[in-house]
């Protein structure tokens, strides 16, 4: 059984068609990346799989459960990190992790384990006892990623996990994701418009543009298929955009 199965998924926002019938599958334990430009439909796909939006057409399953009909069950299996996310400003980082852990854990012992892992994953140390309102963007993102991963979901859905961060913070976040995936065997679905990030993290990627999936494969397969040096070139060739040329 695939971890994620998406069939002809469509989403309309009024007259705008954000998704025009996309299909893909993700295997258990895989890190799968959705790459494409802004407005391609990446976030919409992730929001449908996270039960936030309802599809206009098609269907999607996570570990055999329908995302619309079995939304409450899906929420027990996933952990979602939105692209633009914040934490409760009047709580401390530790209180935020405790609050989340208590909602996921079945008992006090599990909650303690989750918090311990969250503290480690965040890397915020003493700053965890400060209010979230005093955190920088990078610190908040680390706290949110720790929150998403500490519950050890069956599927982690991360929307642009390192978007807008400086090199050091972005590198730390990518490293955390890669190590966590390797150690815990969690399935990941992440979106990004940073091709280097995707190449660094993902086992397989889907190229998405204007609500359609153009191609799917491992980074190596795609580079060979399009005779390209990196995923950036793969994407440009796949969408048939040469762009300007200067020599």
């Amino acid at each position, binding site marked *: 059984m695939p971890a994620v199965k998406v069939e002809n998924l469509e989403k309309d*926002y009024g007259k705008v068609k954000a998704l025009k019938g996309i299909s893909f599958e993700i295997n258990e334990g895989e890190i799968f990346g959705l790459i494409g430009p802004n407005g391609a439909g990446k976030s919409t796909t992730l929001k449908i799989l996270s039960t*936030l939006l309802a599809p206009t057409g098609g269907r999607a399953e996570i570990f055999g459960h329908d995302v619309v009909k079995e939304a409450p069950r899906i*929420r027990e299996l996933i952990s979602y990190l939105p692209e633009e996310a914040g934490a409760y400003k009047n709580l401390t980082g530790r209180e935020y992790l405790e609050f989340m852990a208590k909602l996921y854990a079945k008992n006090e012992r599990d909650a303690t384990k989750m918090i311990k892992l969250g503290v480690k994953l965040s890397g915020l140390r003493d700053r965890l006892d400060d209010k979230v309102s005093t955190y920088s963007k990078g610190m908040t993102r680390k706290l949110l990623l720790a929150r998403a991963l500490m519950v050890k979901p069956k599927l982690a859905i991360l929307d642009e996990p390192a978007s807008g961060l400086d090199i050091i913070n972005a590198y730390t976040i990518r490293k955390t994701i890669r190590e966590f995936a390797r150690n815990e065997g969690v399935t990941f679905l992440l979106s990004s418009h940073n091709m280097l990030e995707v190449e660094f993290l993902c086992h397989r990627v889907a190229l998405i543009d204007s609500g359609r999936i153009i191609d799917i494969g491992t980074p190596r397969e795609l580079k060979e298929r399009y005779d390209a040096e990196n995923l950036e070139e793969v994407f440009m060739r796949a969408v048939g955009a040469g762009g300007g040329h200067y020599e």
Partner: protein
Amino acid sequence: MSDFWIMAKKEMKNLIRDKKLLFGLIIVPLVLYPAMGKLMQVGLEKAQGETHVAIANFDDGEYGMVLVKTLQNAPNVTVTLINASSVEKALESAAKKNQNVLVVIPRNFSESIRENKPATVELYGIFRSTSTGMKESVSEGRINAVIAVLSEQIARIKIQKLGVTSPDALLHPVRAESMSYLKNKIIPISPSVVSGVLASQSITLPIIVFLMVTITAQMAAGAIAAEKENKTLETLLTLPVKRTTIVASKITGTALMGLIAALAYMIGMRSYLGSLGVQSGISLSDLGLQITPEGMVLFALVIFLTIIFSLSLAMILAIFAQDVQSANTVVSSVILPLAFPAFILMYTGLGELPVEIRYALLADPFTHPIAAYQYMFSGNYTGMLTSIAYLAVLAALTLYTTARIFSTEKVLTAKIGWGRKS
């Protein structure tokens, strides 16, 4: 701990730590209102303290001296005699001596009384600054009272000289004894005192209900809008918690905070109003208006249902706002016009209104707490039960709508453009 309590606790923690909320909802009513009241009281007490009166006596007859002596013997009055050639000079001298009032007894004072003509006394309030002048008015009142007693005394002497044995019957041929008739009972208290006691009750409650409803509504709307503004809503909606639990915990958290705030306002307002009003020393139970435990339970139920209705309505409205500020605007523009008509009941009872207006008012849920308050004293339990049934239906409908919206994507996608195209 259940998901519900974990979330409600977080909600309260988040609200309690909000410095702006804490200041506006708890510090202001608990500290500033009583402080304002205390300041007013201090002013009043100072004014009611010793009155300094200057007297310029231009009369050389016996009655002028009688007036001076009467004032000298009056309690809380210190008299300073001023020798001056004219009223202007006397005023200058009185002002220099920090006097509040100058009493001028004119030259012909005794003569007028002897000739059975009305005699005049001139009173000058002396203002040393442009502040309210409470002290001057209190002093004037005190002197007027002294002069009224003196007038009556002089009249009594004159009437006795005419050979009348009971001057009181001639001075006051008709005396009124005021009593009130309330709830089929005669109460030996004047109607003005009874209506004063009733009015103070009927003004305080609508204000408290109004504050409670608007404060809790704003807080509930703020709690939802803050989730959008701080980008925590999407995460919240993907947690393994029922959407109805999220709604219920937000309502409970804000309702508890709202009740604390309402209590703070109630204490603050009571202390403020208490320091202003002259205590009549008469309670509602003296007027035979007893509250039974049943009445109190029904009244509490009416208040509870009104708050639930107002909170869930505010949450629905907040879903359409993108940030806390626009949520407050949209909630104020809907809740305030709804809560305002209930103020009519500060001046009249529901039963005294024309039928159309009465039913129009009863359609407004915010009228019911005040109507129920009147019902509670009159023992009209049918009226209270009708209110409870109506509010329960309305609260259930709005709660259901809120929970429905929360279980769809509208909670994320709905928004009001405010005339702008996004």
